[in-house]
């Protein structure tokens, strides 16, 4: 007896019936497919079940149940992307792509598809900040997410760390303390200032009082130890 293949005429006939059911906009289930094929093709039960099994084994027929909030994460790569967004709060698109690629190289299109699915099921959210698109866990506030994002930059981080440790830092001298170019440091100060994280009064820099606790909370989350902390 020859082995059953997808090219076998009976298999093709069952496949035609499946296509016909889809075209009729009927929900395709094994039961419906079996009943119609049995009625029309008069194939014995075992033979017909073998054909359906072959179609399932060869992935011609696959699970068609709609995605749910839980099942959407059953995709390994999507789950991995989700775990990165959860663990690296404030990650932006390009950085996310690099992180995913380091484990499993996928196309940019596929990454966006998975992000769209995570967005669709309210597992993550996105925030546009300057030229970057930041992806955040759904329960993180946008403002907090942006601070996390800003703190991923080393100069921003150093400025805020210094400001958390010492008060009355002079804007004009900060670049020397940080051992960075003056323009670069000024640019970062302006960004932080524009976003309402720090303020400048008569050349003296300080963290906006309302944000101070948030910054401390983020440092704690990022396991960053401050000198004046116990």
């Amino acid at each position, binding site marked *: 007896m020859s082995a059953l293949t997808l090219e076998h005429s009976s298999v093709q006939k069952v496949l035609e019936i499946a296509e016909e059911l889809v075209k009729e906009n009927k929900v395709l289930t094994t039961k419906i497919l079996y009943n119609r094929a049995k009625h029309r093709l008069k194939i014995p039960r075992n033979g017909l079940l073998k054909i359906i099994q072959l179609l399932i084994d060869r992935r011609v027929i*696959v699970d068609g149940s709609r995605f749910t909030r839980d099942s959407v994460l059953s995709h390994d790569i999507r789950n991995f992307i989700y775990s990165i967004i959860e663990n690296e709060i404030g990650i932006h698109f390009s950085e996310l792509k690099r992180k995913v690629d380091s484990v499993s190289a996928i196309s940019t299109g596929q990454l966006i598809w998975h992000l769209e699915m995570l967005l669709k099921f309210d597992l993550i959210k996105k925030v546009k900040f300057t030229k970057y698109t930041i992806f955040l866990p759904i329960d993180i506030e946008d403002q907090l997410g942006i601070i996390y994002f800003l703190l991923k930059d080393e100069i921003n981080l150093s400025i805020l760390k210094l400001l958390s440790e010492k008060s009355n830092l002079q804007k004009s001298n900060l670049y020397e303390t940080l051992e960075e170019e003056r323009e670069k440091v000024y640019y970062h100060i302006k960004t932080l200032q524009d976003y309402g994280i720090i303020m400048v009064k008569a050349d003296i820099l300080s963290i906006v009082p309302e944000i101070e606790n948030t910054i401390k909370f983020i440092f704690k989350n990022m396991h960053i130890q401050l000198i004046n902390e116990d």
Partner: protein
Amino acid sequence: MVLNWTIEVISTFLAAIIIFFTSILTFRSKEISKIRSVMYLRVTWNLTVLFYISEGLSYLYLDFTLNRICALLLFFTILFFILSINYITKESIFSKSLILFGVVSGLYVYLLFQPESLIISYTNGFYTIKWGNFFGFFAILIQFFMFVYAFLWGYLTWKNAPFLIKREAFIFFLGMLLASVGGNLFYLLHLWLYYLIAVTNLSFSIGVLIISIVIIKQSKLLYILPFELCRISVKDQEGNPLFDHDWSESKVNELVFTGFINAIQVMSQELIKMGGLLDIHLQEGVVILHESERVCVGIVSSKSSKALRESLVHFTKDFEELFQKLLKEKNHNMKDYELAYTLIEKHFANFPSRLIRSDKQPLILTPKYLEIPQLLDNKLKTIFSNKEEYERIKAELIRAPLFTSEDFLDLYDELKDEIEKLENQE
């Protein structure tokens, strides 16, 4: 000498004939005759035949010695039945309940050789040998072991059977009910209604016949309980995937599985020297890896299994032989290795597939058999140039909520600048 032909004797011989026929059937079946668990079952059936013959003869001649032999054979029959089921469900003949059975059967054998254990009785106009006093009680007790084991095996097999073999599993369970519940119930009732002993014998033997025929017709029933086979993956020595097949959704993460296969290839020579086989036990299951000269084959299963390892070794050997030329040419095209499905049918035919959980579960035809709006199709094709990736996304798209495709295209446009930046970096 007048022979004591009674309905009990006739039904006992009839049961022996039915079970002997059953044993021959399992021996002659190409599909199952060489399966180790079936060999254990066949020993059980053969012991049952001997039990029934000695029982029938002991009643026919009203002979105590023959009846004691029959009682001993009952003990061995039940022992082998328990060992068979242990092996079928756990690939090991030992279980904790075996100790309890040992204690009970020890008392049973001791009482069998006590002076008043066997009594010739005259019931309903017929002479028979009754198992009296405590011995009779312990005889019922050891048969209860068989009843519990048989019932649980039948019920759990039916309950856990994938829907494609659910019907066979149900008939199997019915056979088991007939042999265990039917057999034991009528055995108890025959103490009051003597004629029911014939029903007991026939119920048990027909039950055994049904069970065996169903196993011959659907050997997958034997592999429902021991483990759940999830997937097999073949990679060449450079880590390129050559062939994949799934039986059920794996709890072992795809990235973890691939990671193990890749890692194993680093130490391939050492592994080949060790026989090429390696079991990696994870919380979610077991990864069994087999490394050969040209390929690395990995299996994900819920538990480790000797039968699985044997099938894996044979599969790998045949895979290398079948695709020798392609492997030498370092051909990585998965399409050229599709014929490996015949090897799956050859070496893994007994392991049930659980990809579709119920006959009412909604299904879809894979994307190449489905049509989506032309405009969307064209856009997707420009984004996903890899055909397989495109089809995978299309398959997800069909299962996704309404308007996901539109939202996806919007997000793609939104991220355009960042994509360009990424592409320039690459």
